[in-house]
């Protein structure tokens, strides 16, 4: 475990091992594809009900400056939730049906904040 979380969200720490260090959409997408559905469901069930509370907290920080390490780790967990949610809410399986695995899609953002190494 390389990062801790803000105090109010410390109970989410068990998920940092799988999702906490993933920086790019491509990495998160690959981990989602490799995951088992019960694990994705557990992750989703723990994080989805906290969405509003998490962003009420994160949005006390400016959006155009780096977050403190605990908040940054929490945000990475939420990005992973965004990646996992189609598996739970739409497809009911880890990968998009009949997409051969591993499905590699490179994703870069114009501000270079994510997706580039």
């Amino acid at each position, binding site marked *: 475990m390389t990062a801790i979380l803000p105090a109010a969200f410390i109970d989410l720490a068990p998920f940092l091992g799988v999702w906490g260090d993933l920086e790019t959409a491509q990495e998160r997408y690959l981990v989602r594809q490799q995951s088992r559905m019960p694990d994705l469901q557990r992750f989703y069930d723990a994080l989805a009900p906290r969405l509003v509370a998490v962003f009420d907290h994160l949005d006390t920080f400016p959006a155009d400056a780096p977050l403190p390490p605990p908040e940054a780790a929490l945000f990475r967990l939420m*990005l992973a939730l965004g*990646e996992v949610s189609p598996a739970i809410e*739409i497809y009911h399986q880890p990968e998009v049906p009949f997409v051969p695995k591993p499905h590699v899609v490179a*994703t*870069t*953002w*114009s501000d270079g904040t994510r997706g580039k190494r």
Partner: protein
Amino acid sequence: MEQDLRAALGAFDVGFGPMLPDADIVRTGKVPVDAYLSPARFAREAEIFRHVWLNVALDAELSGPGDWVVREIEAASASVLIVRGQDGVVRAFHNVCSHRALKLVWGESGCDRQFVCPYHAWIYGADGSLRGVPDRVSFPDLDPATSGLTPINVEVWNGLVFVNIDANPRQSLREFLGGIAPLLDAAPIGDFRYTARLTGLVKSNWKAGLDAASEGYHVQALHRDSARDMVCSKTNPFVKFMSIDFYGAHRRMSNPRNVDFQLPDSKPVTKFVFESIPQPVVAGEGQAPSFDLPGLNPTHAEDWSNDLVSIFPNFQMSLALNGFWTMHYWPVSVDSFRWEAHYHFREAPKSWRERFAMEASVAMNRDISSEDTACTQQQQVAMASGARAFVQFGTSELLCRHEAAVMEAIVNRSDAPAISVAAE
């Protein structure tokens, strides 16, 4: 429909002289499966990519002096380095060192005053000129004036960067765009400065990918788990286009949405995402359109979702209520293409909530596009069986007909390179 069919039969010129789309394909919708399978046919199509204008980037990707991107055009075996010089001018070059013809820049984007070849460190300026050669005395015959980077013709049209690999382009970009240029002129493309770029390899013919992006008929079936409820309405369940125009080889088509769509509470994350930011792809309610342009949504339909602007040969731009997205289908081989998508948001996220929502929105749209590419990969395998001699596009798939009819006319032109038997 007869009026639309007749419009689809109009002449076009993409640099090979005036031509007519293949009338049989426009009228019947029947396209030989061979067009998706034949290596010789693919070679002829790839050759077209060496002569026409191709959209490769946005001006916004090169916002400051020294900003550069590298774009691969596999069909033309070309790696293109596009760079804004210190003088503000956008230039394009073959991404090839003059010393040993090595790929010069190995990255995808950056900002630099000069480019240094990884092999022996020859140095080029952002204007393509040769600036330095280590151990210069070993090259007594080197002519620096002719040893700069090989230029590629580049033109910027209202924020869209086009290149033409042909050393002597047969048309200006303005001539190439023809009647669709005013639509591009009016689009406030430069207002959307926050962009996600996605790219991945798909194992099917590039035209199958383009087909899937050219009709809404498949949404009710293929996208039943994802996009169907947002797009398919009671009044237009098969997502028929509301209007269509043809501008030579290019097209514009208005697409509908389901105005009755409401996000179910059973999908709380999706709902949070949609409530946090205006969605570029599927519209929310009550938002003023970003693209209120003459020529778009000409029927003033209330259930308008977006106008698809389809630029020959492989570029599609969808101007929607809250943003725009583009798709490129880059031919790689007869049975593979590189899918490239850009999702454009009006401005950078103002909060972490918005940043999350943009990321999640792009992931969802990537998944929906993956439903398409999973489908075309199955299609490619099935086509190869020889079970069917042709595909048949319906009248609501008129854009697919036109794309196929234009391509058919060009590959069959009288000065097309002969198909060699060996290539089969």
